[in-house]
């Protein structure tokens, strides 16, 4: 291959790749993807042992099928005649086991029940849904802070278990903190009332709105006190459900009293975010680039470029590149350079590749040169040198191409571009 052809090859390869990519996109637009059902059928059928059918097997199978049909019909009738247990959905939590949810370290999680009740788990809290009935649920708080808003309904029956304690609820809003290592329980009631039993209590203790119950399972001490001292301004409840549902600030559990001085597992107010909204980091890890771009557009691109964290601006740039929104990617990368000096060099390199992909050789060359100035030993050093060599030659800057080739060979004598670099230097 002649050196001049090689100099163009990267740019040409990108253009040819784009040609194939566009064709694939057109195909996808015209041919909707099949659902996963056929896949699942194939997956399971491939694993199942191949049966060898005999007449007796058929008879047994027939009898079993008939029995199963009767059982299923009975179950269906029972379900139709009795009200269904509550359903729920966990948002922002990892399910470690069936029905057991752990809020992540920096974000709270939210369990939403079909009757409108909800439980917000502060970061790091772990809860197990032990049972759901048509009238309520039984939750086991394994650790951390859970803020519950239980919809008051006739016959509602909710329980929250923590260690050896049990908090019974009809309809109320309350915060529970359980620290298993110290055996301490705190319950703050914001609305309605709850009854606490178990632990050192010989009988039920009723805790009403504006009261705090605290107990120590080890020492056996417990008591009920006012949430706020006389004259003390009533602090905002730790979990304001309206805020949780509608804003980007999430409950922290910080309103819970902490007389012992022990550190609560709650994160600070500005480190926690809306439990139900996945972060852009989550979306990136899932490959859901389109959602990031559409979310940024919904918020307003300018607002995002100036107000989002530099890490999110970088994510937006990547998501825009992956979804072919090159103009947006370019804006985000330029903004990133201004927002995060530590990311400026990498942004320059990416701006170089972006412009090169779009056939803008001059701009690409300038960005690659910027990168080489800003990060002389950076991770993309070899690639940027090669790009500079390639584009300099392609745009008729032969001296610059030779200089880049020399630099490349000095730094990467056995690199993938060494042959091309020698080809440039050998050319008279």
């Amino acid at each position, binding site marked *: 291959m002649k050196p001049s052809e090689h100099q163009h090859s990267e740019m040409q390869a990108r253009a040819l790749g784009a040609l194939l990519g566009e064709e694939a996109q057109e195909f996808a637009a015209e041919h909707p993807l099949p659902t996963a059902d056929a896949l699942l059928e194939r997956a399971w059928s491939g694993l199942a042992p191949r049966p060898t059918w005999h007449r007796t097997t058929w008879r047994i199978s027939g009898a079993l099928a008939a029995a199963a049909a009767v059982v299923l019909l009975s179950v269906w009738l029972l379900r139709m005649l009795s009200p269904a247990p509550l359903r729920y959905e966990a948002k922002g939590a990892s399910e470690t086991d069936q029905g057991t949810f752990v809020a992540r370290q920096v974000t709270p999680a939210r369990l939403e029940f079909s009757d409108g009740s909800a439980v917000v788990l502060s970061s790091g809290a772990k809860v197990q849904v032990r049972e759901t009935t048509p009238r309520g649920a039984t939750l086991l708080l394994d650790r951390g802070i859970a803020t519950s808003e239980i919809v008051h309904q006739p016959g509602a029956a909710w329980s929250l278990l923590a260690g050896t304690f049990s908090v019974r609820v009809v309809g109320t809003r309350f915060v529970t903190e359980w620290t298993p290592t110290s055996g301490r329980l705190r319950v703050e009631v914001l609305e309605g009332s709850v009854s606490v039993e178990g632990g050192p209590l010989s009988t039920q203790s009723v805790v009403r709105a504006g009261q705090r119950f605290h107990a120590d399972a080890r020492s056996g001490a417990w008591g009920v006190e006012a949430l706020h001292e006389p004259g003390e301004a009533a602090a905002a409840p730790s979990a304001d459900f309206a805020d949780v549902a509608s804003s980007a600030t999430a409950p922290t559990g910080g309103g819970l009293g902490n007389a012992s001085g022990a550190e609560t597992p709650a994160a600070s107010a500005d480190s926690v975010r809306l439990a139900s909204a996945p972060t852009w980091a989550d979306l990136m890890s899932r490959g859901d680039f389109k959602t990031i771009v559409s979310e940024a557009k919904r918020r307003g691109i300018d607002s995002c470029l100036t107000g989002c964290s530099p890490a999110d601006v970088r994510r937006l740039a990547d998501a825009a590149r992956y979804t072919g929104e090159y103009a947006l990617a370019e804006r985000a990368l330029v903004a990133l350079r201004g927002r995060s000096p530590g990311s400026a060099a990498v942004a320059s390199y990416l701006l170089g590749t972006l412009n090169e992909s779009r056939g803008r050789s001059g701009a690409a060359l300038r960005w690659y040169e910027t990168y080489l100035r800003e990060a002389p030993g950076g991770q993309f050093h070899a690639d940027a040198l090669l790009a500079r060599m390639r584009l300099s030659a392609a745009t008729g800057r032969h001296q610059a191409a030779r200089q880049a080739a020399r630099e490349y060979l000095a730094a990467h004598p056995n690199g*993938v571009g060494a042959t091309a670099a020698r080809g440039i230097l050998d050319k008279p």
Partner: protein
Amino acid sequence: MVAIASSKSTVASVRPFPRARLGDSELVAEVRRGSPHALRAIWERYAEAVRATLYSSLGGDPAIDDLTQEVFVSFFRRAAQLRDPSALRSYLMGSAVRLAAVEKRSRARRRRRLEALASDPWGPGEQRPNVAGRDALRALRAILDNVSERPRMAFILRYVQDLTPPEVAVALGVSEATAKRAIARGRERVTLLASREPALQSYLGRLGRDSE
């Protein structure tokens, strides 16, 4: 407490945590446990990209949806051996280009047999591949058919699917240095052949003019 512990559990009737919100590693872990929901979530996340990769390798083809499924069925059966679950995307793309390569070899054999019988390589009841009508694309596909396997796969992963060289390495199951060499060979071969192809010369010539 005792009463609670002995009470009937109806957890099975509740709505499961939406899998679409899980990360790749978590989904792979669930697939390893045999979860059909996790496999469905992975399909919904990556099937389009896998099909696009197959399409780039094979062109429009009646079997493309079956082959897309094949990639996921293969993943399902080998999920336990996946070394880095977070590299799921690269793994699936790699499976797709490898499967496309196998399919190409198999078709070439089939076509040779059919040609030996002097019959149409695509039988009377069989739909012909819907190769795009544009000359440039047809020429590009012919060029790719003349590039050896690994460089071709590397070219598609790097320049069509926009994987980085380390991702290409994961997808092809080779070292990063080998992946870079394969990318370089694929690029050089494709662009060399493209430069000799009249249908692509005009396309690339326009690109050159635009960049000035």
